[in-house]
């Protein structure tokens, strides 16, 4: 087994767009441009941790109104009802729609929470020097976090589709609630948090 060197320790960096390995100027006064694609090359994403923290905290704050306020208001033959994300899941369970309850519960509750917890964990752990095996697991955790985030949009789309379809005057109507807005913001913010995080930070501070 040969020892792998980190590009950064040799003054090199991989272009984030086309993966060209570029030599960084020593006093990094000017960010070098990639000779192949013309993009700016960073050894690590600039202000990665600060930006990830900012997006993450914003998403956590908005997660509260997203769950407290109704995401959808429904009238059916004059009877009005409004549902939050959780009461929507409870309704599916009451009606015996286990699969739908599972889909919505996973996409709207489990995935956003898991994303927040795993980003929080990654942000905490990059401050400590890495242990080889754990760094590998954390890299996988990051990759999964980044991949699953978009599936949280299911609830937002469902609300949109129902709003478009169920406009039957006196019989039945569906209106989006303010919670849907907050939830959409949570999805976007957690995605931005994941994109801002630079997984290479997991491997930094390694003892050579």
């Amino acid at each position, binding site marked *: 087994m040969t020892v*792998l*060197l*980190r*590009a*950064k320790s*040799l003054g*090199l*960096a*991989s272009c*984030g*767009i*086309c*993966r*060209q*390995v570029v030599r960084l100027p020593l006093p990094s006064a000017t960010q070098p441009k990639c000779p*192949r*694609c*013309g*993009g700016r090359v960073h050894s690590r994403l600039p202000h990665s941790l600060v930006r990830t923290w900012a997006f993450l905290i914003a998403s956590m704050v908005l997660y509260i109104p997203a769950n407290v306020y109704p995401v959808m208001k429904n009238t*059916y033959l004059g009877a009005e009802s409004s549902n939050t994300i959780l009461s929507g899941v409870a309704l599916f369970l009451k*009606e015996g*729609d286990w*699969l*739908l309850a599972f889909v*919505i519960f996973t996409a709207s509750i489990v995935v956003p929470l898991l994303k927040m917890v795993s980003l929080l964990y990654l942000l905490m752990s990059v401050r400590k020097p890495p242990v080889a095996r754990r*760094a*590998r697991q954390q*890299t996988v955790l*990051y*990759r999964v976090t980044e991949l699953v*985030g*978009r*599936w949280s*949009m*299911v609830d*937002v*789309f*469902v609300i*949109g*589709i*129902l*709003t*478009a*379809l*169920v*406009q*039957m005057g006196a*019989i*039945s109507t569906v209106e*989006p609630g303010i919670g*849907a*807005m907050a939830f*959409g913001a949570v999805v976007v913010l957690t*995605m931005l948090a994941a*994109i801002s995080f630079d*997984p*290479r930070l*997991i*491997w*930094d501070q390694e003892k050579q």
Partner: protein
Amino acid sequence: MDEEVLMACQECDALQRVPWVPAGRKVRCRGCGTTLYHHPRGGLDRPIALLLGAMVLYVLANSFPLVTLDIGGASRETSLIGTAWALYNHDMKLLGILVFLTSLAVPGAILFSTLYVLVGLRLQRSLPGLRQMLALLSHIHPWEMADVFVISILVALVKMSGMAEVIIDAGLYALVGYILLGIAASASIDVFVLWRRLERIDHFSHGELSFEAGK
């Protein structure tokens, strides 16, 4: 072929010389196991064919309604744009814009710019803006959610099926087909391999016949 490429892993920054593998093989990082690149089979023709098919289906998916709901004789239909528009009109402007971007605009932009890049590379020409489009593709990819939208339609339909008659329209079949072709196409595309192809074209058009890997 004992050509080698110098790469630094995007996830763990491990610097390594890796072989330029034949089509159908992939190269993993020796540090963390992430795929560094995969060399897809079928050259450029396969993804071009798949994406041309996907483009036809994308246009069809946007030309017909996706689903129709029938409650006691009153019926309503919706489409991708109709869903975004409904949210926009019900006091959820930002949410409507988000749905428009993720379900319609970004998937369309990715489809058209990928085709443009592939056709340019196939013709061995640096078409204007090709480089910028290829760079743009890496940035907008996470925001493409047409597949999530299809799952959402199914959820909405099951939810409605108890109280209304649900009719699946041509647009939904086209949308599903578009997504399947899109998945097949992205499996036969690797952005790093495309950049190397582009680099070769640039070298030839500047009269430099020698190509040094990884420098």
